[in-house]
């Protein structure tokens, strides 16, 4: 009573990287655009407002790039020494940057000269950020201090001297205007509250802290230092949630994807790793040419910008979806036909009978269902099918053989059609997973077309090619067997335990190959 059962297509395990939705998502970027900067790129920051320009801090310059521009649309170059940590304000109109000489400078995006200069730090300022209320700036410097500045009157409001080494990273909470976090080379990450004069929380990272990140909710803190990325639960008073050790060298930068579902970390080992923020497992990894110092993701993950120690800025844009639209769409039935009868309300006495769901069958399955065997074979020998999915072709050949009609399906072909079949055989005969089926098919073809050989130069050439292939394969097999013999001898001298070496299957197909040759 059952309906037609479609042909079981043999699936083969895909070797190498598993295809997951994450690999698909993160591989969907164009080849990177490389921009040469003057020095090591220490910071990349995206403007939170459209058109999502980004500021790149390298050496004593800050460049602002547009989304697709390869040349900077604006440059701030009024630094005597190295600039650090150019950061946009939430509205994208102000930019703040630290400097090697201990100054903190505030710029208007449209202007050139600094709007404000905050003087007070004695050594290089490596981290600056705007607080959530937009009117204050937090800065951390190599003089072990963290300072809070007021923008309107460019005054220092507070100074925290709790760190015992360089303060190299920090960030302000996006929700609370009074909270901010700094990480230092004294191995600690501290949370400060502007309403008090002391730190409210301190966690021990264990290595000099290179980067810190607060989750948008403010509940989780991520710190990077040494080879470790550590996630802390702020609401539980700074409890260590998970410690990730996926890099070979120091982790230098952290970044969250726009959805907040994935965490990215860049490291001196030239890799960017993508973690799931639910399980903290690595779901994807990017490779770069040099050690990575800075990393930023654009709005909606449209662009990945990575700055490296050799001064190269690598910009990857997401592949646009627009291309698919350009294909002329086939005219489909009108919307009316699909909703026909769907909006009928069931009356009281009506008996609802659903139309039985129609099972979708592939075209070759439809042919096989109607016993059109040659047509089914033609369909799967089409180049589009043989190149993309050779396993379907092989499965159909196998099915035809099971039905005992393979010879019928292969017979009676003209030059063009038989060369299709031979092309496929030449391409795939030597693959061990297809060999048993295809050797059988090759034998049948030789049996059928032996009487007419010599009539077509094209087909004859293909046959010779096939013969060469088989001879080469036999040579390989012989060499392999020799190697095996040698290995066996070695193993025997090592008195290895028996029963674990599975070396038999390589000699498969040996007798068959000889048959074809003849």
């Amino acid at each position, binding site marked *: *009573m*059952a*309906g*037609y*059962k*479609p*042909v*079981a297509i*043999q699936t083969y395990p895909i070797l190498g990287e*598993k295809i*997951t*939705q994450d690999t698909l998502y993160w591989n969907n970027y164009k080849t990177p655009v490389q921009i040469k900067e003057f020095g090591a790129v220490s910071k990349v920051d995206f403007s939170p407002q459209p058109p999502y320009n980004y500021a790149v801090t390298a050496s004593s310059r800050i460049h602002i790039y547009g989304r697709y521009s390869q040349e900077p649309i604006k440059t701030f170059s009024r630094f005597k020494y190295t600039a650090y940590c150019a950061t946009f304000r939430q509205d994208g109109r102000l930019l703040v940057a630290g400097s090697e000489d201990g100054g903190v400078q505030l710029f208007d995006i449209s202007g050139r000269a600094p709007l404000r200069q905050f003087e007070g730090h004695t050594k290089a300022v490596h981290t600056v950020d705007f607080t959530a209320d937009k009117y204050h700036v937090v800065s951390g410097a190599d003089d072990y201090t963290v300072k809070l500045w007021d923008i309107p009157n460019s005054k220092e409001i507070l100074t925290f001297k709790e760190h015992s080494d360089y303060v190299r990273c920090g960030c302000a909470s996006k929700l609370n205007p009074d909270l901010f976090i700094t990480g230092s080379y004294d191995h600690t990450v501290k949370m400060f509250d502007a309403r008090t004069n002391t730190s409210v929380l301190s966690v021990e990272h264990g290595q000099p802290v290179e980067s810190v990140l607060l989750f948008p909710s403010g509940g989780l803190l991520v710190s990077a230092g040494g080879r470790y990325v550590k996630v802390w639960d702020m609401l539980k008073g700074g409890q260590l949630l998970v410690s990730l050790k996926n890099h070979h060298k120091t982790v230098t930068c952290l970044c969250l994807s726009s959805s907040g579902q994935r965490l990215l970390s860049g490291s001196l080992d030239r890799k960017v790793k993508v973690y*799931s923020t*639910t*399980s903290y*497992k690595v*779901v994807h990894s990017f490779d770069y040419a040099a050690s990575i110092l800075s990393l930023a993701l654009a709005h909606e993950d449209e662009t990945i910008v990575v700055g490296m120690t050799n001064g190269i800025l690598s910009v990857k844009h997401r592949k646009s979806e627009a291309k698919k639209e350009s294909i002329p769409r086939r005219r489909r039935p009108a919307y009316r036909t699909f909703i026909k009868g769907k909006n009928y309300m069931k009356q009281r006495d009506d008996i609802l009978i659903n139309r039985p769901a129609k099972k979708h069958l592939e075209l070759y399955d439809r042919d*096989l269902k109607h016993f059109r065997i040659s047509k089914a074979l033609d369909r799967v020998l089409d180049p589009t099918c043989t190149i993309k999915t050779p396993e379907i072709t092989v499965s159909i050949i196998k*099915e035809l*053989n*099971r*039905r*005992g009609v393979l010879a019928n399906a292969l017979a009676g072909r003209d030059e063009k059609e038989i060369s299709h079949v031979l092309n496929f055989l030449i391409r795939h005969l030597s693959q061990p997973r297809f060999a*048993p089926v295809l050797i*059988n098919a090759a034998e049948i073809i030789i049996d059928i077309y032996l009487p007419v050989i010599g009539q077509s130069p094209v087909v004859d050439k293909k046959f010779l090619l096939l013969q060469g292939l088989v001879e080469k394969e036999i040579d390989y097999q012989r060499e392999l067997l020799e190697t095996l013999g040698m290995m066996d001898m070695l193993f025997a001298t090592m008195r290895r335990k*028996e*029963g*674990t070496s*599975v070396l*038999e*299957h390589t000699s498969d197909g040996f*007798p*068959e190959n000889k048959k074809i040759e003849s």
Partner: protein
Amino acid sequence: MVDEETIRVVRCGGSELNFRRAVFSADSKYIFCVSGDFVKVYSTVTEECVHILHGHRNLVTGIQLNPNNHLQLYSCSLDGTIKLWDYIDGILIKTFIVGCKLHALFTVAQAEDSVFAIVNKEKPDIFQLVSVKLPKSSSQEVEAKELSFVLDYINQSPKCIAFGNEGVYVAAVREFYLSVYFFKKKTTSRFTLSSSRNKKHAKNNFTCVACHPTEDCIASGHMDGKIRLWRNFYDDKKYTYTCLHWHHDMVMDLAFSVTGTSLLSGGCESVLVEWRDATEKNKEFLPRLGATIEHISVSPAGDLFCTSHSDNKIIIIHRNLEASAVIQGLVKDRSIFTGLMIDPRTKALVLNGKPGHLQFYSLQSDKQLYNLDIIQQEYINDYGLIQIELTKAAFGCFGNWLATVEQRQEKETELELQMKLWMYNKKTQGFILNTKINMPHEDCITALCFCNAEKSEQPTLVTASKDGYFKVWILTDDSDIYKKAVGWTCDFVGSYHKYQATNCCFSEDGSLLAVSFEEIVTIWDSVTWELKCTFCQRAGKIRHLCFGRLTCSKYLLGATENGILCCWNLLSCALEWNAKLNVRVMEPDPNSENIAAISQSSVGSDLFVFKPSEPRPLYIQKGISREEVQWGVFVPRDVPESFTSEAYQWLNRSQFYFLTKSQSLLTFSTKSPEEKLTPTSKQLLAEESLPTTPFYFILGKHRQHQDEKLNETLENELVQLPLTENIPAVSELLHTPAHVLPSAAFLCSMFVNSLLLSKETKSAKEIPEDVDMEEEKESEDSDEENDFIEKVQDTNNTGLGEDIIHQLSKSEEKELRKFRKIDYSWIAAL
């Protein structure tokens, strides 16, 4: 309690339903089919077996409705009797003793008080059609020896005989001849196919024949797939025939519809073809019926057809060619590779079914529960094709896992092998494919076993193969952040001097694995997979291997091809005892230490039941079957028996089933088969404790209300409501199987009326009747109580509680009724 009876081998269900054409009742409500020594009555709507008519002592070979009374059924059997049944109640009315083997039965409405039968009298292969006069007599058993000869040299099969045009003539076919006998003229015309002169290559033998119900037209089916329609056959010279050709192979059966407008045909294509107006153009198809169509029958009312198939299945088909019901028995037209297994969940017997399927067969209800499609490929039915065979299957982890192996071997070197692991899904109540392993071994898999120890934390499977290896497969966690998944992977590969691995077996606690390599048995530790010790007896290849259980778990049993049964002690690593026994089947009982071994000799098969601890068997039964026994299995009993006699104690907790080479499923029992098979109709009767359906809530509340009312009336006797359980209409409604009830619309008014308060004067008259009815019912109840002993366990506690209340009120109410009766008569007198 039953230990005095002797154990005998009984056939247990699974008999052919497709042996003869099924017959419809006049109203198309029931369908009858022969099934071994019985006739089974099925409902066409619910597919349930309503009655089993037992009484024949040999194979039933024909059934026909009594043309004079459509509520009666004739059946004939090889035991030489024709029996007349009342099929609605399942009662035997009469037995006519004919005295010779009857091979088929025909009835004709015009020939009153006589039926036609196929008999063979002199030689074993010469069959005759005779008319049997059934004498009118009131006694139960009547001799019917008055046979009058009609046709000679006919085919044995009833498909080759057809009565036409209201019994004016009878057509019979054999080889290349069609003979028509005219009853009035008493002449026979014989027609020969033209091509039959060259007999060597002719493939157009007649296979079946059917007659048009009203016209003079005979349809005959042929070996080459043609159907010929013969007309004008009154004349030996001027006869004509037309040809209809669609079938590519033999036409298995033909049937005309009741009106004769269409002809149905079927063959091994498993397609039912309906030829409209007997023309080649107008044909309709019902394809994909699953197996070769063996028989086609048409209901007298004309609304239903049915086809019997070679896989022991009857499909009931609606007039518009839509299958409406399937009656499926045990499929057994193919060889069994998997052996007999018991599904731990359903307790169903599991074995090869349809091609590429595993069938789950309920031993209790003699019904196939379901089919599991293992191979999942289109089955091409063609002669000489090498099909993929399902060769091995095993259940593991209390029915949570099922492992199957399928193989296809075209040539010596080309082997396709696939192992599939199925997981039981509680939500869908079925097995779902979990892992598919291509070529798990390089050569055929010879044995497959799960580690079924209770405390094993990780499901483990072992496969042994001819390639000299055994592999251990374990379930591993395959989940990642995207999905949760489990899969099977190979954990260990073991071999012993490259000998072929022939058997494998886990000990009861799962700590040891025994693998036999040809003549040698190796014991492996299941934790470290180290070879512990080897046993070698040099007595031929090991054919069976099993560990002892419970108190005998220190023993390992092995049966060899040279006919030696060995028992090794695992503690001393020495041979405990051996015996000369050519063991064909060796099965351990899961519930006890016993092991059953069936040996094969030239005379027949013998059964030995023994404990591994001592070489003396507990029980021996010689000659259980004349043919070879292929498989056996112990089935745990739901309710333990209590045999006190020592010889029968092995049957207390389990029952032993075995399958012979001719695929008859046999078992040991002290009871007769009639007792064993309880008619489903009895089980279908509503129990006293009603299930809590919405219907119950109406009636149940009503009844509680009644009880309260009753208490009141004990005091003042003012109002009397009829009690629901005493109303005949209600009790009938509740105690009749749903499929035999008339339509709800018909019952409704009666039911509602019965619930209404009857007027006092009326009730006075009705009461005596009521009481009668009640008494009758009570006597019935007491009869039924015996049958429901088993059922009582199923009823839940609340139900029992209500039952007690209910019974109490009944007795009280009985008194009350008497009281009331007197009271009312007194009122009426006023």
